[in-house]
């Protein structure tokens, strides 16, 4: 894949635009929001399809239950609120009424991770991937830019079963070409290489792209794979790449515990034990600050990926 910056946008706008497109093509698609319509970029859907938009107020537990009930009758509800309020706040509702009941609800979660920024740790969930991937039957997706988030939003409407779609607040480079198909559960190879594989998800994919440029100048042949679907994990692509490169760095805006890296480590421990380094938050809460400053402070910068690559190459 040829990487170039195609623009700059927030992934939540990809969600909003994907949702509006779905509103137009699929009359069964409904949207629910818990008083964060603007933050979730759901305004356009609300204005275009008011009879299919449901403002539930600041009552996320009720929203999850209503969404689950709406599926009875063939509707496809998309819930929208911050990632923290989509997961930890309503974990039991999601577990019993959606996951265990196998309801076709799309839980769409913005402002995930540290890049939420100034609001601080109360709002910066870094445990959501772990919580959601532990639920049997739950699909977990964390796209990396505007185009991929829009494509993912459209793709999950056709997937039958509960989905957790995680995206973010800040404007970041758009670099996945518009026409790239989004296949749930299939990793996207961004660059082929032979010395090391970097698996990255969400905002860390762009950081990895930046890291790969530096590493290439150092003479390292890096394979970069975007794991947008954390569950189900693309075991085939991961094992194939690791068989070739024999060492791994994972990168994500999440705790090490419960994250994408943990899923990959478990896969490798079982099938092909391999040196692995994790670029992720290490058992800490975040804090207020500018997103870029927070990413540096908590070790999620592209330079942290470079350091992890050097470290793991020495362990090979």
């Amino acid at each position, binding site marked *: 894949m040829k990487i170039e910056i195609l623009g700059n946008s927030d992934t939540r706008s990809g969600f909003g635009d994907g949702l509006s497109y779905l509103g137009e093509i699929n009359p069964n698609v409904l949207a629910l929001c818990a008083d964060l319509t603007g933050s979730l970029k759901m305004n356009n859907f609300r204005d275009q399809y008011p009879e299919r938009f449901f403002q539930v107020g600041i009552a996320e537990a*009720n929203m999850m*239950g*209503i*969404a689950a*009930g709406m599926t009875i009758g063939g509707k496809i509800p998309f819930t929208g609120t911050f990632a923290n309020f989509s997961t930890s706040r309503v974990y039991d*509702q999601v577990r019993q009424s959606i996951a265990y009941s196998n309801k076709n609800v799309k839980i769409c979660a913005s402002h995930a991770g540290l890049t939420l920024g100034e609001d601080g740790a109360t709002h910066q969930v870094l445990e959501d991937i772990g919580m959601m991937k532990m639920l049997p039957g739950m699909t977990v997706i964390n796209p990396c830019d505007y185009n991929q988030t829009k494509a993912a939003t459209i793709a999950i409407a056709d997937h039958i079963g509960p989905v957790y779609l995680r995206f973010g607040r800040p404007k970041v480079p758009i670099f996945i070409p518009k026409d790239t198909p989004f296949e749930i559960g299939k990793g996207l190879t961004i660059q082929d290489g032979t010395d090391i594989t970097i698996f990255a998800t969400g905002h860390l994919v762009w950081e990895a792209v930046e890291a790969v440029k530096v590493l290439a100048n150092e003479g390292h042949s890096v394979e970069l794979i975007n794991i947008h679907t954390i569950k189900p994990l693309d075991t085939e692509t991961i094992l194939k790449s690791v068989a070739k490169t024999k060492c791994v760095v994972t990168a994500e805006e999440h705790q090490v515990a419960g994250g994408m890296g943990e899923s990959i480590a478990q896969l490798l421990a079982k099938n092909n034990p391999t040196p692995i380094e994790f670029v992720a938050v290490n058992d800490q809460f975040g804090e207020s600050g500018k997103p870029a400053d927070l990413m540096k402070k908590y070790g999620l910068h592209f330079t942290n990926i470079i350091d992890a690559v050097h470290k793991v190459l020495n362990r090979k």
Partner: protein
Amino acid sequence: MKEEKLKNFASQVRRDIVRMVHAQNSGHPGGSLGCVEYFTVLFNEIMNHNTDFNMDGQNEDLFFLSNGHISPVYYSTLARCGYFSISELSSFRKIDSRLQGHPTTHEGLPGIRIASGSLGQGLSIAIGAATSKKLNNDISIVYTLHGDGELQEGQIWEAAMYASAKKIDNLIATIDYNGRQIDGDVDDVLSLGNLESKWIAFGWKTLECDGNNMEDVLNTLQEAKSLTGKGQPIMIIMKTEMGFGVDFMMGSHKWHGVAPNDEQLENALNQLEETHGDF
């Protein structure tokens, strides 16, 4: 269905409840027994429902049990109405059974559309299903049942606020107001205060009834039905006696979640006529 027939149905459901709970020495007989008249009337006289089950349930009335622990009365009613074989009641709470301790869709038991057990979630589900019906131009009604102790869960009041604000008027909820929960009397554990005033204040059309009087249950549910479509959700505060129909189980919270022993089972069954044949 004539009154005699309803009473016979109820008597058999009560036998099923105590026998199911006894067989596995596990389950919740008290609340189940108290709600037998409600289930009997709802499923035989009130709801337009299809025992040839499909999950979407379009163009039929739907029922959601929010206080999932009274699953014995739910399972017996579903089986006796023809959703699944009566003999399957013997698998209640056993391994590899579709009759889980608390109702679930996971094992594919016909008649169940949502898992319940963790309390306070059913009203939201019903609002969602009722909304879906409106979107589908389906004029059917959605019914729910809740425990009174369950009203201590905050999600109930989120849903209560939503249903009236958004005029969910194809919804008839009922509270099993038996005044008891696991730890004791509801008034001692955490009083609900003036329950009727609370629901009225939340914007619901509120009715009261004697839940162990078949005729009153029937009349109240019929009245509730006539009040749908008028811009307000409907709540029936249904006074019941936990353990109703089995004398030694009445008047206490102690039979909330305790199974009878052999002797107690025999005593209970002597009070309940076998009208439709035991499972």
